[in-house]
């Protein structure tokens, strides 16, 4: 398969960067997330980014339209994200699967979220196979192959000191071709490295079906006790897609409507105008999060909404682990 030496990574990135904005996982003042590529940026591919790549297609805050109000007349003016092409480099299988989940939500079922669609269609995703499982990773338990993911435009394989590359889609081919033109590619028949044992393993088979009858199960009475209801897990999770629409005033007459991340963990998330809140306390909120990940999303879109990236496990202030929840559901006794 075509490959390029790891030593030449910087050059590969430079050539890709010339095509359009290139996003790479980098460490900038101790924060590991996807940044636009710059020559002096410290690219970090050893382990998955701390903050997921979802913010590239679904940013934490974005302006959706301007509005003006002069007395009784007013107007609306759309603000669309720029359409320039971009390359998302170094996306692992768990994040690639997460992007597919987001596609289901934002691009199907009667409506298309224009903002997500514009960014998503302009992007070429270059996936990266994992050779070593992270401390909190469990993608294999969620039915994913850490080495590769068929949903990506181009796939990199870890061949030890080479990266093998394969184009899958037409956009992916263009990337491979660009690297070939730059003379960076050579043929390599080295073995693709496969990560050995995962530290975290869990059997997620049939969990969605079992949860159908577990809405009132006593498991939920204990689970919320240590949770502090912060938004960390939802904001780090690559598949959480909830958002809020609010507005900011520029002055007395005009302002801008803003779409920003929201979390089912916050109190006023489900609060209705009259003050009634169907999920008043922590128990309902924690149940909603895991039910959505492991039952509601599979019911609606046919795939788990958890891809085993382990970010929520790594950063949860109280170590409330979704793998532990899956185990508890598996062992739970359900009558009838």
């Amino acid at each position, binding site marked *: 398969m075509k490959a390029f030496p790891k030593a030449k990574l910087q050059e590969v990135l430079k050539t890709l960067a010339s095509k359009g904005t290139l996003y790479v996982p980098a460490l900038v003042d101790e924060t590991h997330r996807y940044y636009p590529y710059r020559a002096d940026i410290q690219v970090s591919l050893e382990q998955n980014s701390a903050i997921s790549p979802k913010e590239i297609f679904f940013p934490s805050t974005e302006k959706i339209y301007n509005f003006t*109000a002069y007395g009784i007349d*007013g107007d609306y003016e759309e603000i*669309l994200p720029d359409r320039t092409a971009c390359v998302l480099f170094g996306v692992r299988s768990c994040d690639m699967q997460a992007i597919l989940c987001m596609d289901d939500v934002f691009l199907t*079922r009667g409506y298309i979220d224009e*903002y997500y669609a514009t960014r998503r269609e302009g992007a070429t995703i270059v996936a990266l196979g994992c050779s070593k499982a992270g401390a909190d990773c469990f993608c294999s338990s969620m039915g994913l192959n850490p080495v590769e993911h068929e949903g990506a435009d181009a796939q990199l394989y870890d061949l030890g000191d080479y990266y093998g590359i394969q184009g899958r889609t037409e956009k992916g081919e263009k990337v491979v071709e660009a690297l070939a033109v730059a003379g960076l590619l050579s043929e390599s028949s080295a073995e693709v490295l496969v990560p050995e044992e995962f530290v975290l393993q869990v059997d997620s088979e049939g969990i969605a079906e079992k949860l159908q009858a577990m*809405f009132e199960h006593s498991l939920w009475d204990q689970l919320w006790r240590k949770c502090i209801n912060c938004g960390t897990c939802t904001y780090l999770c690559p598949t959480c897609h909830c958002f*809020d629409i609010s507005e900011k005033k520029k002055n007395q*007459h005009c302002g801008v409507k803003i779409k920003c991340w*929201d979390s089912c963990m916050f109190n006023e998330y489900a609060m209705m*105008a009259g003050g009634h809140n169907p999920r008043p306390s922590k128990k309902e909120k924690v149940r909603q999060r895991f039910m959505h990940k492991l039952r509601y999303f599979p019911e609606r879109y046919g795939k788990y909404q958890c891809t085993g990236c382990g970010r929520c496990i790594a950063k949860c202030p109280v170590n409330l682990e979704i793998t532990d929840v899956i185990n508890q559901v598996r062992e739970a006794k359900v009558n009838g």
Partner: protein
Amino acid sequence: MVKDNATPENLAKATTEEIKRINPLIPMKAKVTKIIEETPDVKTFYISKEENGQMVVPFHTAPGQLAMLSLPGVGEAMFSATDAPDHLQLSIKKVGTLTDELHEIVPGQTVGIRGPYGNGFPMDQIKGKNVLFIAGGIGLAPVRTAVRYCVDHRDDFAKLHLVYGSRSPADLVFQYDLFETWPAVRDFQVSVTVDRGDDNWKGNVGFVPAFLEELKPNPDNTVCIICGPPIMIKFTLGILDKLGFTAENVITTLEMRMKCGIGKCGRCNIGSCYICLDGPVFTLAEMKKMPNEY
């Protein structure tokens, strides 16, 4: 399927192919042409879009569908919308900051409107059957869309019966329809009750569930459409069950917090259904299958 003439059916099985690409989150610029003061805290707003000089309906809505109304600089919220030839009618009760401001605007005010949202009432399935409408307070607004559909297609339906209750005579909405147009319709019984009467109120006094028990509507071959405050629905469903109505024949609308209206923002989910997309209209049977979290 061009989204403009979205009807419940094709919405349910919409696929990605030929969806006309417009940004669903941007409201259309429209004007409030007329405001009718139904009761001290309910007003009906006539909303039309200006298209090359004339005022036309922004979009058509099927009975039971919703529209997202936004007031520039204040906010936006989901209301049930009644279809009309050249305008949309939205009846709005004063409950929060947005509705307070809406109740202070004057005709000619520019607003934003987008929609239609929701699956609406399954009028086709209930063709040929008797229809029992039950509404409480502002719940009459969504029910009225179904009533008007039945009145416009009177022959497609058997007997019609409306049971409507509100807090006091002053709180009765659409009084013109209640006491003039609908009673005049063929085989359409209109029963109105109020929680607290006043000296010149002749009609029945009492809560809707109790009133329903007195009326004892006949359940066979009858579909019931019910909307109103959660407590009224809870008790009325119990009575309907006692009267022999089957879960499939009872249809109601659910109210949840809705932000995007297009099934993306995740706010209005009950179980795996998004109320703004797969609802708000559900049969009692469907609701029994959903997690009890609404």
